[in-house]
């Protein structure tokens, strides 16, 4: 009987990965086609095989569409993986990287860059990246000062740092020029892939790779951190250093994404839930599947963002539209599920 259930479950996992993988490939192709300057599948085929196409089409494909698609995949996968890791190590189905202040920190960094330096994309991205890292560094210092080992200290410290960051953002907004700067600050919090270029993708790629690869390599430690602290330590997990490394890797991952895209809501929260419901497990496979689902959600959101309306819509509106029904469904189904 056990053999049978094992086989059935393996089939379920394979099916889940195949379905999500196929949908992801289709969405990625679609994402390369859709936009103000549509490109057909035939044209993409010709570009890739070195056939005849208009110069303009070629340039749009290589410079804008492909990098935009790649960035959507990197962002979604990054947020999906980080979300899964956070939900496991904070033992909380509502945890996301925001919980230790990454978003607020990145937001503050971006706002400070806009007000104090300039609205240039590179400056804002650098500000957001540093802001995210700095916020998490502050959280870790606070936790260290309390000499506490429990995860809830991280959550509390995250709330404190987020509150301080938000107050400073308000102050910046108050002094910001209401025509240009204030709009830029607000717009940044809604997320967008509209201004993605190949050079931006290549700049953040090393950080993304370190974060993503590092978390995957540490997958077994992530699983052990799902136990309570005492049990985890008695199984030989060096709690302080391991947890710190995992939080730093995920911060690197999320900051690298957010610095280019601005804040993207819900993706990091719902992707792990979808993955978990699909394969009914909470393990390394769930982490990987959550990354794939995150990429899929973001690709779909981005395709809708540039095709629903004449002007581009902010990403977070669409990720929320996709995310809320999923969360509602999860809320209704939850009785007795993973608590």
């Amino acid at each position, binding site marked *: 009987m056990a053999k049978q259930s094992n086989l059935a479950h393996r089939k379920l996992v394979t099916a889940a990965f195949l379905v999500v993988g196929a949908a992801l490939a289709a969405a990625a192709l679609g994402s390369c086609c859709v936009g103000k300057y549509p490109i057909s599948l035939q044209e993409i085929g010709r570009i890739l095989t070195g056939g005849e196409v208009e110069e303009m089409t070629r340039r749009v494909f290589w410079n804008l569409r492909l990098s935009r698609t790649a960035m959507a995949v990197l962002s979604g996968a990054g947020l999906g993986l980080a979300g899964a890791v956070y939900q496991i190590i904070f033992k909380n189905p509502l945890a996301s990287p925001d919980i230790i202040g990454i978003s607020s920190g990145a937001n503050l960094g971006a706002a400070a860059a806009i007000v104090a330096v300039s609205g240039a994309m590179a400056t804002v991205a650098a500000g957001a990246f540093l802001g995210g890292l700095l916020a998490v560094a502050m959280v870790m210092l606070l936790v260290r000062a309390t000499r506490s080992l429990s995860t809830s200290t991280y959550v509390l410290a995250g709330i404190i740092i987020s509150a301080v960051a938000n107050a400073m953002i308000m102050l910046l907004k108050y002094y910001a020029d209401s025509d240009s700067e204030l709009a830029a600050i607000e717009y940044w919090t809604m997320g967008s892939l509209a201004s993605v270029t190949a050079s931006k993708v290549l700049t953040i790629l090393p950080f993304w790779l370190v974060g993503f690869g590092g978390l995957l390599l540490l997958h077994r430690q992530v699983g052990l951190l*799902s136990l309570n602290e005492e049990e985890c330590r*008695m*199984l030989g997990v060096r709690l302080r250093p391991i947890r710190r490394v995992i939080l730093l890797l995920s911060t690197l991952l999320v900051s690298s994404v957010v610095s280019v895209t601005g804040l993207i809501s819900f993706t990091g929260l719902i992707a792990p839930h979808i993955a978990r419901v699909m394969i009914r497990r909470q393990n390394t496979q769930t982490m990987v599947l959550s990354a794939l689902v995150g990429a899929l959600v973001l690709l779909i959101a981005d395709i809708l963002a540039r095709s629903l309306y004449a002007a581009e819509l902010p990403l977070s509106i669409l990720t929320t539209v996709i995310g809320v029904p999923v969360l509602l469904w999860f809320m209704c189904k939850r009785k007795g599920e993973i608590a």
Partner: protein
Amino acid sequence: MTPLLSVEHLTSGYGRRTVVRDVSLSVQRGEFCALLGLNGCGKSTLLKSICGLIPVQGGICAVEGEDCTHFHERQRALKMSYIPQRGSPIAGKTVLDVVLMGYNARLHLFESPGRSLKQQALDTLGQMGLGEKADLDYAELSEGQKQLVILARTLVQDAPVMLMDEPDSALDFVNRNMVLHQIRTIIHTQNRGGLITLHDPNFALAYCDRLLMMKNGSILTQVPLQTAGRDEIESALSQIYGEIRVLQHPGGFVMVRA
């Protein structure tokens, strides 16, 4: 002969509050010892200090003659294992995955357990009578089965010293007997050393080799059950439990209220 586990003049507590005062004890190979005492007497604190979960304020705790007070978690996990009162809630993991967690201290940080370790884990589950359950979701098991899975995880961790903090507290009468029986069998056949805290002295009388009576953070007396007579056991137990009687029956001793 050096004892497997030896604790000398151990003092520990929380912050400035001292809970365990100058405790010395030792556990031999193949010996299953019980720490008995009332709520708040410091038995859990003593156990956690030996585990290194609480920083030690003074004294030594050595396994096979090697002081491990200042070991970090990974080094310590090779010397001693721990079964908590009630395991962490584990969701979405198979029984086999839970057992495989026991190998953590023996693997590199990035390494996953290979085929032979998996087979060994399956064999250990089989030994607990749970071979059929390996691929089930851990959360679907009964409390007794869960505690047996945690025991299997402890076994694959393969540390010579086994520490247990009321591992039976969530179990019913049948499961409690089954789990304690398994623990005792393992300690005796595999020559490990066990130290367990228990609330019910009758289970200690039925399964353990030696009783350590604890009160106000110190160990009052020790009773080796193989050689002790009814009177000795009764006077030792009454120091903690007050007005009690110890009765002898063909299988051993039981404690009742006087």
